[in-house]
């Protein structure tokens, strides 16, 4: 990692040049919510003016640029009695601007499954390799709990990471193309003064987290609380709509389905993001459902996030962005559920 400092106006020129030469995706205000607060979304931009670098948090996660809601895995062409399969997973390079540390950490978690897992996914790898990522730090929202999950800083998985230090950005450069690109702009080696303000900034961000979720020893007490009545309480609230999984930056469960074209000459095998809270998630042939009750499915989601994944990867899958909590129609959020469980655990002991 090489550190440099770039002034904000020069950084803008850098962005302009990137946008000119590549497909660039950045945070854009798409709408306002019921309190008139802006809602941001990642989409393709055509000039640096469109990008809102001071955005709070995007409503949906950037995982959808790597794992689209719907993706064609393979295509079949039918001829008389025969068929042929074609597979396409190569993509064009693109630039993603303005990812928050938790978003980049979420991608690093997805890498564990789709890049370094037992069966790496070429569809994902191709997208990941061909994406130039510019990260940006931010002041947390009141309900973010990234610091509890230790995902408020990021050390890998990006090309450039910018920390706001007043008039300029403190850059952490993590790839050779990024360094080559930045050579063409006015960047300076950080002075002692810059280092100091960078450390100040990091301390400030760490201090401004207002929500804290205690995750120590979570796996073992989730085991103990497996039959806790708390799950019934939260399960009854849950609407099983699957919104939480759609906005989550790390949820990756999917289903595969096949569709025949109207002219019956072609068919495609599509992957579709799914949610473990949906009724037929654990249904098998013949109609037996391994998780028939609402609370079973909600519990399973928490188990996968905070226990199951931890057992395999030594860290929970959750990054603490609280997107699920914000999007939930029934007001279920990880902080409340975990605190409730903890309370129940303490009462019993």
């Amino acid at each position, binding site marked *: 990692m090489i550190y440099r400092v770039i002034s904000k106006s020069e950084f803008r020129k850098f962005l302009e*040049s*990137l946008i*000119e*030469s*590549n497909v660039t995706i950045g945070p854009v205000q798409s709408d306002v919510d019921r309190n008139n607060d802006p809602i941001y979304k990642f989409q393709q931009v055509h000039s640096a003016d469109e990008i809102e670098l001071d955005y709070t948090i995007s409503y949906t996660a950037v995982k959808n640029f790597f794992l689209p809601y719907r993706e064609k895995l*393979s295509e*079949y062409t039918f001829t008389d*009695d*025969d*068929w042929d*399969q074609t*597979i396409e*997973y*190569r993509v064009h390079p*693109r*630039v993603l601007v303005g990812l928050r540390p938790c978003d980049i950490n979420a991608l690093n978690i997805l890498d564990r*499954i*789709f890049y370094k*897992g*037992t*069966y*790496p*996914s*070429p569809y994902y*790898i191709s997208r990941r*390799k*061909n994406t*130039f990522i510019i990260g940006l730090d931010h002041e947390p929202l009141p309900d973010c709990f990234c610091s509890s999950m230790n995902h408020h800083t990021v050390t890998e998985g990006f090309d450039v990471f910018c920390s706001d230090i007043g008039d300029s950005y403190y850059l952490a450069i993590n790839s050779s193309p990024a360094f080559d690109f930045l050579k*063409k*702009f006015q960047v300076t080696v950080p002075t002692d003064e810059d280092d100091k303000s960078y450390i100040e900034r990091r301390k400030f961000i760490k201090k401004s987290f207002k929500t804290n979720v205690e995750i120590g020893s979570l796996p073992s007490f989730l085991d103990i609380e497996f039959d806790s009545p708390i799950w019934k309480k939260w399960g009854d609230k849950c609407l099983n709509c699957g919104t939480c999984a759609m906005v989550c930056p790390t949820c*990756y*469960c*999917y*289903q*595969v*389905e*096949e*569709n025949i074209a109207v002219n019956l000459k072609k*068919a495609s*095998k599509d992957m579709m993001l*799914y949610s*473990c809270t949906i009724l037929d*998630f*654990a249904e*098998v*042939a*013949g109609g*037996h459902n*391994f*998780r028939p009750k609402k609370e*079973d499915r909600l519990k*399973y989601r928490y*188990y*996968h996030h905070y*226990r*199951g*994944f*931890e*057992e*395999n990867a030594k860290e929970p899958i959750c990054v603490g962005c609280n997107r699920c909590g914000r999007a939930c129609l029934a007001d279920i959020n990880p902080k409340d559920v975990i605190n409730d469980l903890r309370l129940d655990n303490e009462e019993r002991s």
Partner: protein
Amino acid sequence: MKNDLKLPVQDVNLEPFMATPPQYTRKKVLMKTDKVYKCKIINVIDLTEYEKLFHLKILDRVERKIFQFRPGQFVMLEVPGYGEVPISLSSSTNNHEYIELCIRKTGRTTNVLHEASVGAYVGLRGPFGNSFPMEKMQGNNVLLIAGGLGLAPLRGPLYWVSEYRDLYKDVHVLYGAKEPSQMLFTYQYNEWEKVNHINMLSIVENPDENWNGRVGMITELLDEIEIDPINTYAIVCGPPVMFKFVCNRLDKIGIPMNKMFVSLERRMHCGMGKCCRCMVGSTFTCVDGPVFDYWSVLNLKEAI
């Protein structure tokens, strides 16, 4: 001055993913796309009203050579345009000519498969999952317990012990079905008993007028045979309800939990440990399973 910051294309070329057969003894990192082996249905055998046995031949000669499996593994069978289903392999590992799959008519894809005739082309991915530890069982008695369709995945180990019969001591097959008409592979029982010296016991719950065998639950068959708990390995396969009864019973007889193996059933969508549809706690049925010893199953919440 205009800066050209065009990003280079990073090509991910994973197509020639397997030139040599993968090693199934350890989890090897395999690059796999959704490419299927094209197979031709070369024979269809009606077993019962709902089950048919399909013989599939992989068309490409190199792919046929690459396709090697162990008893207990499964494949993803695809009917292009209809869907993909996980099916356990029920043929002998030494049969390199064709693959046998026993399929019950139960959903969209399997309904179409049951209408398929000889000569149709289907896709096959795999094999996936782990397998029964057949080498470990050498020199021991083997107890194969199947209920209903559970006999299909047990045909793999059954072929294995038949082919290496002198390496194993007593082999018992206990098979339970709802009705006599639902019994699978009836034409092979004689062969197994007479040629391979396997003790074959079967029982049905609801007999019809032609049935003159045993009537009752599968656990009753365990009373009829003598089991040496220390030197016996058991493989249990059947509907989820059956596992609990049979495994508890075997536990009482004294077979250690890590010598009882079960094959779990889930609706896999990818077979590669990614879609999470088959996840039990922290374990993927498709990558870490489908074969588990009973000890692991007890430790997995919601497994059966």
